[in-house]
């Protein structure tokens, strides 16, 4: 039975209802409430009204989220738990809640699975509870996208209406992070509200996910994983997955068919963004299968065919202009035609090229850098780097490959794997014309030959 998050802790959900499966053992609803009670105590003792929530385990995230809402805290959700990212947000009056133990020093409330007792939980006011998500911003700084619990609940109710019957109690396992809205909603909150079990880890490889998955589980994944399914035998009929959710970027038609053969169903692609929430969905029977808007979502296009959406859970309940160019059909469904701005999508992650360049230029080895997308078999993030004198020195000692490994390592405290350039060229001077504009054709040319250019 579907219970909204605001009413979950005062509901009559049975204490022995399993919530999450951790290393083969179930955490029950009673365990969850006891752990939340323990965390409430810690938050209150600090007297704060906002927290940063960044966890390894999705179950720890859910515990932290419900405890923070119970204690009237606004929740900041960074896009990842990397130390370079957390320093932007964590301070004494805004402590870190995390199950990762060595990152927040004195300003951390450790989510450690200990139990406590809360005499009475309260019903939450969905208009007063907020999660602040962060996405790649155009200035290179993460951009804040606030979501009220009311918006979140409206969307979860819609998702339950459409997918609840099909999911029918299925356990959920994911390859995506709960620090992003798609992973949080589909992997954690929808199962939590519907009373289904979720697995709190992020599975990096399919073999581990399948080894852990009970028969007929739901998978929450992304194009990065669905385009890289190993040569498995198809799942036996009685174990086939009822629903595979994917989001973040276009899923190639071949990958959809491959997943269908191996797992037993065509992936359900969710189109949306942090700003808009879920907008539309499709199962790609045909490369031109249009996306159908979720109930309550309106769609329109402007003269450039740029899609705008409006729903009960988009921000401000007003038209929200997306960065996607679409072909709009008469019934409101649409076919994606491309993206229209400086953000790029790599492996389903939204990446700001300016942000990657900004961090790259911080290196002592780098004088200037151009980061962009190369359209190969799949889009590849590449970097052309103008080295400093120490950079060339190092290049001579260890060669281009080892040097690019060092630069990737320097970026890794700030950026996720998908945002680390995969192909590199080192040049004496970035190709720039008299007006100071980058010469994209010359930059592309550097990658045209098979061999490295050093």
């Amino acid at each position, binding site marked *: 039975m579907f219970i909204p998050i605001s009413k979950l802790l005062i509901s009559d959900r049975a204490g022995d209802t399993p919530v999450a499966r951790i290393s083969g053992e179930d955490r029950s609803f009673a365990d969850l409430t006891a752990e939340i009670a323990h965390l409430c105590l810690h938050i209150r003792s600090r007297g704060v009204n906002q927290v940063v929530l960044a966890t390894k385990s999705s179950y720890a995230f859910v515990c932290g989220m419900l405890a923070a809402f119970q204690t009237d805290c606004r929740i900041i959700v960074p896009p990842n738990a990397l130390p370079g990212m957390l320093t932007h947000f964590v301070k004494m009056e805004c402590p870190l809640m995390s199950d990762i133990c060595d990152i927040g020093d004195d300003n951390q409330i450790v989510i450690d699975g200990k139990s406590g007792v809360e005499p009475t939980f309260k019903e939450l006011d969905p208009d007063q509870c907020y999660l602040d998500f962060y996405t790649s911003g155009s200035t290179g700084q993460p951009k804040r996208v606030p979501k009220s619990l009311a918006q979140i609940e409206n969307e979860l109710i819609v998702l339950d209406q459409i997918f609840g019957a099909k999911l029918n109690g299925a356990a959920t396992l994911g390859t995506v992070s709960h620090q992003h809205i798609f992973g949080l909603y589909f992997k954690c909150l929808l199962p939590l509200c519907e009373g289904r079990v979720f697995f709190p880890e992020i599975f990096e490889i399919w073999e581990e996910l399948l080894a852990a998955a009970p028969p007929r589980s739901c998978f929450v994944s992304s194009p990065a994983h669905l385009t*890289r399914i190993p040569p498995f035998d198809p799942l036996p009929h009685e174990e086939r997955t009822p629903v595979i959710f994917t989001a973040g970027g276009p899923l190639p038609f071949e990958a959809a068919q491959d997943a269908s053969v191996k797992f037993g169903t065509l992936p359900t692609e969710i189109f949306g963004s942090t700003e808009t929430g879920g907008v539309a969905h499709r199962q790609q029977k045909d490369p031109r299968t249009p996306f159908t808007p979720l109930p309550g979502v309106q769609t329109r296009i402007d003269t450039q065919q740029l899609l705008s959406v409006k729903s009960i859970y988009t921000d401000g309940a007003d038209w929200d202009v997306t960065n996607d160019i679409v072909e709009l059909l008469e019934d409101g469904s649409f076919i994606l035609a491309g993206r229209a701005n400086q953000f790029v999508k790599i492996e389903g992650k939204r990446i700001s090229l300016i942000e990657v360049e900004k961090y790259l230029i911080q290196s002592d080895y780098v004088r200037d850098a151009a980061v962009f997308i190369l359209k190969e078999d799949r889009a590849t993030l590449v970097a052309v780097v103008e080295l400093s004198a120490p950079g060339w020195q190092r290049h001579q000692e260890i060669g*281009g490959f080892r040097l690019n490994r060092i630069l990737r390592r320097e970026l890794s405290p700030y950026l996720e794997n998908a945002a680390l350039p995969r192909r590199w060229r080192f040049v004496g001077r970035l190709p720039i014309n008299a007006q100071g504009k980058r010469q994209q054709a010359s930059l592309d040319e550097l990658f045209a030959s098979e061999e490295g250019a050093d």
Partner: protein
Amino acid sequence: MNDFELEIKKLVIKTLNLEDITPEEIDSEERLFVDGLGLDSIDALELGVAIQKSYGIKINAKNDDLKEHFASVRSLARFITSERKELGA
């Protein structure tokens, strides 16, 4: 250098499209992920698929300590060799 290890180094370079590096420059003992060769989780997916396709073996997370098998070229060579023996038996 062991011939099979060399073959795997070539496979790693080709599959992951690594540039400015020759198979000889990869140390059989150096770590493939994070440190050493600095491969990431996306590389791991690609490499897993390539190895299963090239050698016809199945990677099964239930029985095997995958992280250890994928630690270095040497451990990977050992793992593939033993898996193929099992298939042949």
